[in-house]
């Protein structure tokens, strides 16, 4: 991204020129003394066997400003867990691994369930949430950064740029979202390009100017899995455990803080990770499931802010969305042409069809049960219910790491 345009109500931090990572890291070193930084990594064991995680570890081995790294490991057996520990050893930062399938962490989840706290099913959302809890329990860090573990083009500059706005005490931001262009020989990031942006703009058209929609529309990449925040925010924010994680988190940020204290930062020139398959027929899998969850999350947030969703509104929404999406498609086609990228119009149109169906499905689910929420309670609420939960969580991770 080479322009310096400020989008919408939040601050956009661009990558201008070719800033030195050396300088960035040395500044972060200074900031970290005042505001220690924790890195949360929600990971699947399979990511350690693929090319992504070894590359990430190699880069993290050179990062020295972090205070702690919390790795929430899913889908790992006991021997996998040991192997992951070995693989993480080169990293100079203290690494704590939350072994989600381990018997101690399972017990933590069961304790929560016994006390009527629904933390949802296994997934990135739940992993991230528990990791925040652990960071809060230890109380050693003021800043939490999080990124996915399936990035195959990982560069530690990404982490430095992500942490910088929050770690720098001279900047008063509490939440920072990463953005980047997802371009290889074609444009990726279909859900953002063809669902979220057109949906948000259609809703703006239908319900008129709305603060949350304007907020959401300000993000260049609302679905990026990379963000950074203060621990205070992590304490009060609720996060969804489903695919609505990113949008739902943004909704919570919008609810708790002024947009002035939110920014987005250009973190990478190239970014590549594993892609979700399009599953036009199965609503419980792949892109379709993701799309449905995202739409539900948007509807729920708007409803909670007083927007009235009627049957007619949903019907209009489908039509408006389709028009918006088709227009968007044409914009991207032109964009692809001038940049010499492959553009499969048929594939893209098929994606739009799938997304249209997702919106309809999300609308139906929402109308049937508007109260159902995949939000995990925030940590303040959890502590009120189980005052000793932090000690228990800390002890569980401590024991596991022995």
């Amino acid at each position, binding site marked *: 991204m080479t322009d310096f345009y400020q989008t919408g109500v939040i601050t956009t931090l661009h990558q201008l020129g*070719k800033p030195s990572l050396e300088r960035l890291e040395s500044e972060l070193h200074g900031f970290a003394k005042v505001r220690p930084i924790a890195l949360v990594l929600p990971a699947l064991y399979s990511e350690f066997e693929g090319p992504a995680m070894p590359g990430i570890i*190699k880069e993290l081995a*050179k990062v020295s400003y972090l205070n702690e790294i919390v790795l929430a490991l899913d889908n790992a057996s006991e021997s996998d867990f040991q192997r992951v520990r070995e693989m993480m050893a080169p990293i100079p930062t203290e690494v704590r691994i939350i072994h989600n399938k381990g018997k101690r962490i399972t017990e933590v989840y069961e304790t929560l369930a016994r006390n009527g706290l629904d933390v949802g099913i296994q997934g990135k959302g739940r992993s991230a949430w528990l990791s925040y809890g652990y960071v809060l329990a230890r109380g050693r860090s003021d800043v939490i950064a999080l990124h996915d573990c399936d990035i195959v083009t*990982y*560069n530690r*500059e990404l982490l430095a740029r992500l942490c910088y706005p929050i770690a720098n005490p001279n900047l008063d931001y509490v939440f920072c979202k990463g953005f980047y262009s997802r371009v290889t020989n074609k444009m990726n990031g279909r859900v953002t390009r063809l669902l979220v942006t057109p949906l948000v703009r259609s809703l703006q058209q239908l319900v008129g100017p709305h603060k949350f929609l304007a907020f959401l529309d300000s993000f260049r990449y609302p679905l990026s899995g990379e963000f950074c925040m203060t621990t205070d925010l992590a304490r009060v924010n609720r996060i969804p455990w489903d695919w609505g994680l990113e949008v739902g988190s943004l909704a919570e940020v919008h609810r708790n803080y002024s947009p002035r204290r939110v920014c987005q930062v250009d973190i990478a020139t190239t970014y590549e990770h594993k892609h979700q398959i399009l599953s036009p027929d199965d609503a419980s899998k792949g892109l379709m499931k993701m799309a449905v969850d995202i739409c539900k999350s948007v509807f729920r947030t708007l409803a909670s802010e007083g927007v009235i969703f009627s049957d007619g509104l949903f019907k209009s929404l489908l039509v408006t969305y389709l028009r918006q999406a088709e227009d968007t498609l044409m914009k991207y086609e032109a964009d692809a042409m001038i940049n010499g990228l492959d553009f499969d119009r048929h594939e893209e149109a098929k994606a739009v069809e799938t997304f249209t169906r997702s919106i309809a499905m999300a609308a139906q689910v929402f109308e049937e049960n508007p109260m159902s929420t995949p939000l995990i309670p925030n940590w303040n609420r959890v502590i009120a219910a189980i005052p000793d939960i932090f000690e228990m969580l800390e002890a569980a991770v401590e024991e596991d790491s022995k």
Partner: protein
Amino acid sequence: MKTATFRSEVKEQLERIGQADIIVGIPSYNSAHTIGHVVRAVQGGLAKYFPDLKAVIVNSDGGSSDGTMEVVHNSSIDDFNAILLHHRVEPIAKIALPYSGIPGKGSAFRTIFEIAEILDAKACAVVDSDLRSITPEWIELLIKPVLLGGYDYVSPLYHRHKFDGTITNSIVYPLTRALYGKRVRQPIGGDFGFSGAMAQYYLTKDVWESDVARFGIDIWMTTTAIANGFKVTQSFLGAKIHDAKDPGTDLSNMLYQVVSSTFALMENYADNWKSVHGSDPVPAFGFEYTVGLEQINVNTARMLTTFREGLRNLREIWLEILGAGDFGEVERLGTQDDAEFHFPIGLWTRVIYDYALAFHNKKLPVEHLIKSMTPLYVGKTASFILQARDMGQSEAEAEIEKLCMEFENNKDYLVSNWK
């Protein structure tokens, strides 16, 4: 297995000598026009500073065709009175013999060690045969710390131009210092003093069929001495002026020889260096002085071109070795103008550590791996020259000190990634 010393005529010669207190070795190969001066300086030094001790000069030759050995035989100081107060009792014995084994400085040294062992020498010194600036004092400075100070190994200190010895200054010295914790400033100086016990210890090592015999002997001797806990010191010898090296040996070859030897030693002594933190100063003998800096001819623009061409062509290899983050930094350097070009020391430290790790993990064939570092090294050297252009000797030295501290501070990265 003994080598050259097995030959009957050498054996006879050695038997005639019987025992010696001091051995001075001069390895040579086609150095007929310089070795005469070196032999005379050594003779002078031995006569002047150790008149009462029995000394032998050993020229270990690699099969020179220009009559190097004859020159050694015929060189002697005509008028000892010019440098001596009193005459020496017995003449200094000279042995000139061709060594056997793999051609290289290491094999030459092996023969010298063997003779030192047979003659039961107390102290030894080795000096290069192409030295122009050697004086009799060098012998005193290399031998005395062993005889009187109880040191096992004496490494040289030179007065050099601030731009000279860049492989030493930017790779070998900082790395050796950070690894083994001893601040030996010229680990590959080429002129060393060592005790008889040290020479015998060297002979116990089974390295004479490896690259050590060919070209890695200097760093091998220094590292072996430090890593095995021998008492090490340094002596200030003054300026080192020697004949220009063979212009045919190109820079990447030089880099390959020096760096691969240094990295190979890391494998052997991994258990020793992993536990070392920080570094200790090594005492130094001799009177240190500085002289003016002559103008030196360097073309940094051409060096930077080499760096940028390397970046263009070797990006895949570098990306693989350095990882995305540091490669991005190197790439950023490629966009800088000549005037503002600056290779950060932190980045350079990680480059060297990453190459050491790649060597350890056998990511590429050794020669490819280390030669692919050449443009990076050239870039770093150009950056140092640009930075130190207006600096005095001590300021330039302070920059090297900073680099060393960076190597020491980042050592954890190397240790934790070495598996």
